[in-house]
């Protein structure tokens, strides 16, 4: 008896994986709208530029330009260890860990990070903890955009 049969695991039919992913994305974007996470993500989407919204939906992150240095930053879905400076080729540089105090939902944290970097980058850099980014920090877990 194979392991799949032993544990009752049925292989997905062709196309099943993408349907499962689409169903999950649909649930997140519609079913969870009334939760704190859903409300915060809806607010975030409204405040993103069209290109940031598109990028967030497709890639799970969006990019902003620092108000003081003009540097580009990538804000990934997450509430901490989710912001990284990127160079002109899009390569990850220094990671910045900062967030608003209080246990805010992800969308609120990301919106606060966007506003802060776009309006008071110097203050952000003064409080942020630095980290060296790697693939683990920025794995795309699910489409939230």
């Amino acid at each position, binding site marked *: 008896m194979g392991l799949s049969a032993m544990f009752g695991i049925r292989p997905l039919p062709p196309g099943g994986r993408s349907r499962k992913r689409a169903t999950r994305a649909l649930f997140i974007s519609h079913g969870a709208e009334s939760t*704190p996470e859903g*409300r*915060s993500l809806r607010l975030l989407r409204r405040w993103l530029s*069209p290109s940031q919204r598109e990028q967030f939906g497709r890639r799970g992150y969006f990019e902003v330009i620092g108000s003081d240095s003009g540097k580009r930053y990538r804000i990934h879905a997450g509430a901490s260890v989710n912001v990284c400076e990127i160079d002109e080729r899009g390569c990850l540089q220094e990671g910045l860990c*900062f967030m*608003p105090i209080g246990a805010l939902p992800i969308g*609120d944290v990301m*919106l606060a990070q*966007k506003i802060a970097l776009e309006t008071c980058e110097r203050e*952000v850099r003064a409080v942020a903890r630095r980290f060296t980014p790697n693939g683990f920090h920025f794995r795309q877990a699910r489409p939230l955009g």
Partner: protein
Amino acid sequence: MAIQIVMDRTGDSRHLFNSHDAQELAKAEQRFYELTKVGFTAAIRTGPGQVCQIRSFDPNAEETVFFPRLVGG
């Protein structure tokens, strides 16, 4: 109607007010300064995806978002 959106653990708290009503406007102004005094940052949208931080109450702002003080993680 104008709106002040204060981020909190429920997602946000929303305060609608009529900016043509002096009493409601005064209440909104009071809320603005109470929040910024305790460290909240206030921001408004100036265009699609464009944001601007404000340090004094703007009676013409249609939508103002407040988020708590930032700290390093």
